[in-house]
């Protein structure tokens, strides 16, 4: 990674506010790419065509020969889709400082591997053998990175957050704005309860165990708000020690990966409806990418595992409402408040933070705006059609291809999670941070379960009907 870093333009990142921000943060690039694809899909649809030729996706296949036949029949489309992603994502990563000549070979390998996993997930026996694409992608990536090691030339192509944010913007195209308005307030209430309680538990436990308050706050927001992103946002806002941020990151990543496997497994054994399971995962997972892997896995059980009601998309929709709308968007407020407390109440560090309310916007996860705009635009376009025409024309010609592009983006991300997670490189976290964070994890998971399956059960169940 350092080898790539040496080629970045400058050593010091000065505060450059204004328009420059629109091209040097991946949140904005996810918006440009996601909304660009939505705009192209709408333009083609309005002219009687569709983006579906380009947004190619594997179909169910019973025998290997059928999969090979699909590949032969649609080979040109898969090549065109690679070009589309390579240009769009390559432009974005180049603007972020990663050389295009290093990104492209890495992305080609990622695209081929993601395609193979996408195909595998559509084998008609995949559910029988538990070959859910997110888990296969994650498991394969973890196996490679923690045994033979991820090749260095592959690293420039492994941009988990860039892919997941682009996918979330595209996800907005499949979620009507009316649904977000209907479910958003409940998601915010549920997420607020869990976030405040989880943060409180981790913070108090950490302080009682004698840990520094800045570490306690970094651990708390990592567990309660938005995982690794929460940890780095609060670590910077309160001026935590570099090692403290690393400790929080290590704990979040390990627990988030454990939860990718555990939450869908427990929900499956309880036959939770897809909407309810998605809400629980959205409440109790720590990071967007990890949670989407778990939610998409669970959505895949719909129609394949007896006793699980609801449709496949409900798990991802409920997760996104809970995690993105309910938790992620508040990170700026957490940063502002904790920075203020750190400056005025906690032990001085020698570095004086200049807190102001602008912190709330500066740290706002901007990709959420793209998600909302995509939802609003598709809702507007669909408004002129009755339900029968929507099902016959708008869904297959406009919405479904965008959902297929979303699945590609998510698969790139799931594969990248595993390939970038090298447990041996994690810092030693120590017993006390581990205990404090783990107590919070337990409370978070139990409280999220009770709220999703008892208090708001009826509400989340309806989401999948």
């Amino acid at each position, binding site marked *: 990674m350092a080898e790539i870093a040496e080629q970045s333009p400058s050593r010091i*990142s000065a*505060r450059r506010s204004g328009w420059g921000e629109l091209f040097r943060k991946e949140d904005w690039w996810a918006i440009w790419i996601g909304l660009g694809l939505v705009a192209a899909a709408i333009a083609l649809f309005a002219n009687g065509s569709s983006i579906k030729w380009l947004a190619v996706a594997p179909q169910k296949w019973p025998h290997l020969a059928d999969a090979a036949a699909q590949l032969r029949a649609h080979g040109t489309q898969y090549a065109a889709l690679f070009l589309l992603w390579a240009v769009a994502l390559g432009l974005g990563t180049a603007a972020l400082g990663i050389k295009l000549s290093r990104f492209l070979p890495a992305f080609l390998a990622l695209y081929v591997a993601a395609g193979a996993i996408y195909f595998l997930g559509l084998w008609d026996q995949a559910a029988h053998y538990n070959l859910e694409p997110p888990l296969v992608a994650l498991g394969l990536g973890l196996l490679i990175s923690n045994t033979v090691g991820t090749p260095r030339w592959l690293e420039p192509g492994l*941009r*988990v957050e*860039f892919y997941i944010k682009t996918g979330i913007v595209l996800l907005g195209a499949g979620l009507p704005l009316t649904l977000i308005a209907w479910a958003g307030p409940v998601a915010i209430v549920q997420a607020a309860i869990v976030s405040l309680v989880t943060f409180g538990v981790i913070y108090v436990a950490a302080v009682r165990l004698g840990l520094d308050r800045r570490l306690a706050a970094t651990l708390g927001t990592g567990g309660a708000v938005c995982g690794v*992103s929460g940890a780095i946002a609060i670590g910077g806002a309160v001026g*935590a020690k*570099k090692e403290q941020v690393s400790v929080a990151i290590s704990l979040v990543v390990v627990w988030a990966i454990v939860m990718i496997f555990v939450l869908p497994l427990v929900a499956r054994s309880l036959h939770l409806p897809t909407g309810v399971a998605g809400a629980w995962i959205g409440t109790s997972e720590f990071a967007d990418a990890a949670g989407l892997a778990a939610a998409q896995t669970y959505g895949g059980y719909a129609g394949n595992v007896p006793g699980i009601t609801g449709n496949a998309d409900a798990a991802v929709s409920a997760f996104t409402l809970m995690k993105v709308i309910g938790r992620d968007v508040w990170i700026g407020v957490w940063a502002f408040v904790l920075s203020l407390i750190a400056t005025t109440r906690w032990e001085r560090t020698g570095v004086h*933070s*200049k807190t102001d309310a602008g912190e709330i916007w500066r740290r706002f996860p901007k990709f959420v705006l793209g998600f909302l705009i995509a939802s609003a635009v598709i809702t507007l376009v669909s408004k002129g059609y009755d339900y029968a025409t929507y099902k016959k024309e708008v869904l297959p010609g406009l919405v479904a291809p965008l959902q297929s592009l979303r699945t590609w983006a998510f698969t790139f991300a799931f594969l990248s999670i595993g390939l970038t997670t090298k447990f041996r490189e994690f810092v030693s976290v120590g017993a006390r941070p581990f205990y404090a964070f783990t107590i919070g994890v337990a409370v978070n998971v139990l409280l999220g379960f009770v709220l999703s399956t008892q208090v708001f059960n009826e509400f989340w169940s309806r989401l999948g009907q």
Partner: protein
Amino acid sequence: MKSHGERSCAGCRHFNGRPLDIEAAMPGLASLSSAFAAVRSDDGICAEHDRYVSASSVCAAYASPA
């Protein structure tokens, strides 16, 4: 005499806010997040204090870039 803006961490020799360097210094960061994320704002690593600080912070150990 420099203003606070000029003397903030963003302009200090000890401060490194380059995203790829931050990801290299904090294993796991790129696995489930990113140093290019908006939530990071312009924070960076202070080599003098060994802290992860906001670019707008100030301190007595400020040093002009070489």
